[in-house]
């Protein structure tokens, strides 16, 4: 019994430490950034504009991806409208009630708008919003989980397939082997959108191009936080003959970039301009990134509240609103931007319909 207890204790601590650690690393970054260069704008902001509540997804500010992109929009809004802000961070595996409580705390403080970053806030916003009819809520990537519409909630979605289409075009124009690869973090509907757009873009340029697809996890969300898995998935694609791999796998992407550097091949980033945040030795392997402008959506939400016409219901940020796009940092695709933009125009005009499922 005693031996088991001790063994068990060690095991449990290890488990807690593992979940804790992942986060502590982030916290570490967070604090480094927080203490030095990037102290949150919310600490210093004291204007008399709107008071914004921003509830992050797991990882929080400093994740160099989704949450940071939302923060960038928040920063712009604070500057533009002399706003103040409050941030809330999620913990891994937290209760539904924890998200709800976070939003209620923000609402109790009178913040408006309150933005939940990530579709996990869909249910909690749905539960909280009816109690605060005067406050505007938004959920990035969110949806209304029931049949009763909420007239003070905006669901800010993105046409990821359109952005993916464009980087697919870029890849098709740059490939020398006519073989491309796609690494998905988790095999769910959202990531399938990226895959579908990418494949459509590539085959639009050259119908003979083959796109090999590799998912890190079937359903475990850990697939978005598994650099080693990303590395393995990408390495397999490179070894299979692909010379450009597009990833939609969140933090696992760093592994994809490592694999690209090792294979001396190209990778394509996702969500934000990953050229800017990658280590120097990997930068030269990042062809472009598909941009998902969470910052634009965040800023627009604040803007709409300031203008007195808060966004409600479903809003899709697509190419026409600059909600998705591609990056050119590094200058690797400067020679083909005209071609890519032609496709973009065709999508905006409706000439090309990008599929949302493979």
């Amino acid at each position, binding site marked *: *019994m005693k031996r*088991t*207890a*001790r*063994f*068990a*204790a060690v*095991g*449990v*601590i290890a*488990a*807690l430490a593992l*979940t*804790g650690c992942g*986060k*502590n690393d982030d*916290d570490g970054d*967070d*604090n480094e950034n*927080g*203490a030095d260069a990037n102290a*949150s704008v919310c*600490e210093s902001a004291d204007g008399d504009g709107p008071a914004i509540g921003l509830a992050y997804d797991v990882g*929080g500010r400093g994740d160099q991806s989704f949450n940071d992109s939302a923060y960038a929009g928040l920063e712009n809004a604070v500057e533009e409208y002399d706003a103040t802000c*409050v*941030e*809330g*961070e999620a*913990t*891994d*595996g*937290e*209760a*539904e*009630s*924890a998200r709800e*409580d*976070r939003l*209620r*705390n923000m609402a109790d*403080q009178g913040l408006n708008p309150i933005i939940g970053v990530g*579709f996990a806030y*869909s*249910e909690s916003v749905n539960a909280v919003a009816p*109690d605060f009819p005067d406050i505007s809520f938004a959920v990035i*990537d*969110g*949806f*209304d*989980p*029931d049949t009763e519409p909420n007239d003070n909630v905006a*669901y800010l979605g993105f046409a990821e397939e359109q952005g993916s289409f464009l980087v697919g075009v870029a890849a098709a124009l740059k490939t020398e082997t006519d073989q491309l690869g796609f690494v998905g973090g988790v*095999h*769910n*509907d*959202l990531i399938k959108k990226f895959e579908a757009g990418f494949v459509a873009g590539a085959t639009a340029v050259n119908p003979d191009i083959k796109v090999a697809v590799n998912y890190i*996890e*079937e*359903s*475990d969300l850990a697939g978005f936080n598994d650099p080693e898995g990303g590395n393995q998935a990408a390495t397999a694609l490179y070894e299979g003959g692909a010379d450009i791999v597009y990833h939609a796998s969140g933090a696992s992407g760093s592994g994809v970039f490592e694999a690209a550097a090792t294979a001396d091949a190209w990778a394509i980033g996702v969500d934000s301009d990953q050229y800017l945040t990658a280590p120097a030795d990997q930068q030269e392997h990042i062809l472009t990134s598909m941009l998902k402008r969470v910052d634009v959506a965040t800023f627009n939400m604040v803007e709409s509240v300031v203008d007195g016409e808060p966004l409600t219901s479903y809003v899709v940020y697509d190419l026409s609103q600059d909600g998705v796009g591609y990056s050119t940092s590094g200058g690797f695709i400067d020679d083909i931007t005209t071609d890519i933009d032609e496709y973009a125009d065709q999508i905006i005009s409706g000439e090309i319909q990008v599929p949302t499922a493979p």
Partner: protein
Amino acid sequence: MNAGTVVLKVGQAVLAPLIALAFAVVVTSVIVSVAGSSVSEFWEVMLEPPSKRSWVNILNQTSMLFLAGMAAAIAFRMNLFNIGIEGQYLLASYCAAVVAGAALLPGKLNVAAAVVVAMVVGAVWAGIAGVLKVTRGVSEVISTIMLNAIALTLVGWLLNQYGDSAGQGRRTTPIPESSRLDGFSFFGYFAQADGRVWTLSFVAIVVGVVLAVVINRTRFGFDLRATGSNDEAAVASGVGIKKMVVVAMLLSGGVAGLIWLPAFFGDGYYYGTPFQSNLGFTGLAVALLGRNRPIGVAVGALLFAWLSVQANPLQLFADISPSIVQVTQGVVVLAVVAAYEVVRRFGVAQEQRSIRKALQRTGRLEEGAAT
């Protein structure tokens, strides 16, 4: 002597967790201050009297953590390390959600059916590990870890394959209104916006009482404890170990199956984003904290629920990452195991001393009589 023993026992039960808690407070404070945040602000937020809404959340979380802790405790009492609670309640929750969502039975009968399904699925999933252990000698630690991974992938696949599309993700069909449980407002003490203490939280109490009786008062419980403390002696006493291993795993898994059901019928109504993961692992820690005794597990669950609920607004009010309390939780568990051992040894020495004293007295008398 007896009063002394009682004081000693109570001291042993209370002293160790208190020492551990104090130690955890110190360690957490050090980490908070090293991270450059304000220690006083941290504890202000953590120790602030919870709002009614927070109380609702704490009670609800406690009920789920208690179930998870008891599931772990049953196995621990048998010297089995059921790491697979996570997978067991995941699969059980999904299956229960599918069955309840299909609404084959009307109203509350639907709830009963889902409870049965959840317990059976959890028991079967844990039972696989039990059967593998007794027939093939596979360590339950290994097999349950594997079963966790399988459960996770299986549920994900089933959800992607057969789930309803909802926004960016998939979910099971929501249960009908008639099968939703309103929860307790405690005669209006908790307002609508505070939320409700889930109806099925009472299941946790029932499970606690039943298990306490089964473990302490029945022959089965005696066999279970004897096997856990000294399996060879249990075998010699006539306990069929193989059967006990399987039964203990079934029981542990059955309880594990219940973990998420209070939230499901009280708040979530479908399996998808509302599903709360990680409770199985936390349950192991809670069981250790509570020394596998129902009362202890309840206290441990309450402590962990308090910590996580109170930590939630840390970022809002003190700009500290709420993840810090996971450090506190980890340190508490580690310290409590160490402290129990120290206090236990002290207790043993104390007991032996008292016996020696008592016997020396009688021994002297006999000597006197002999000479």
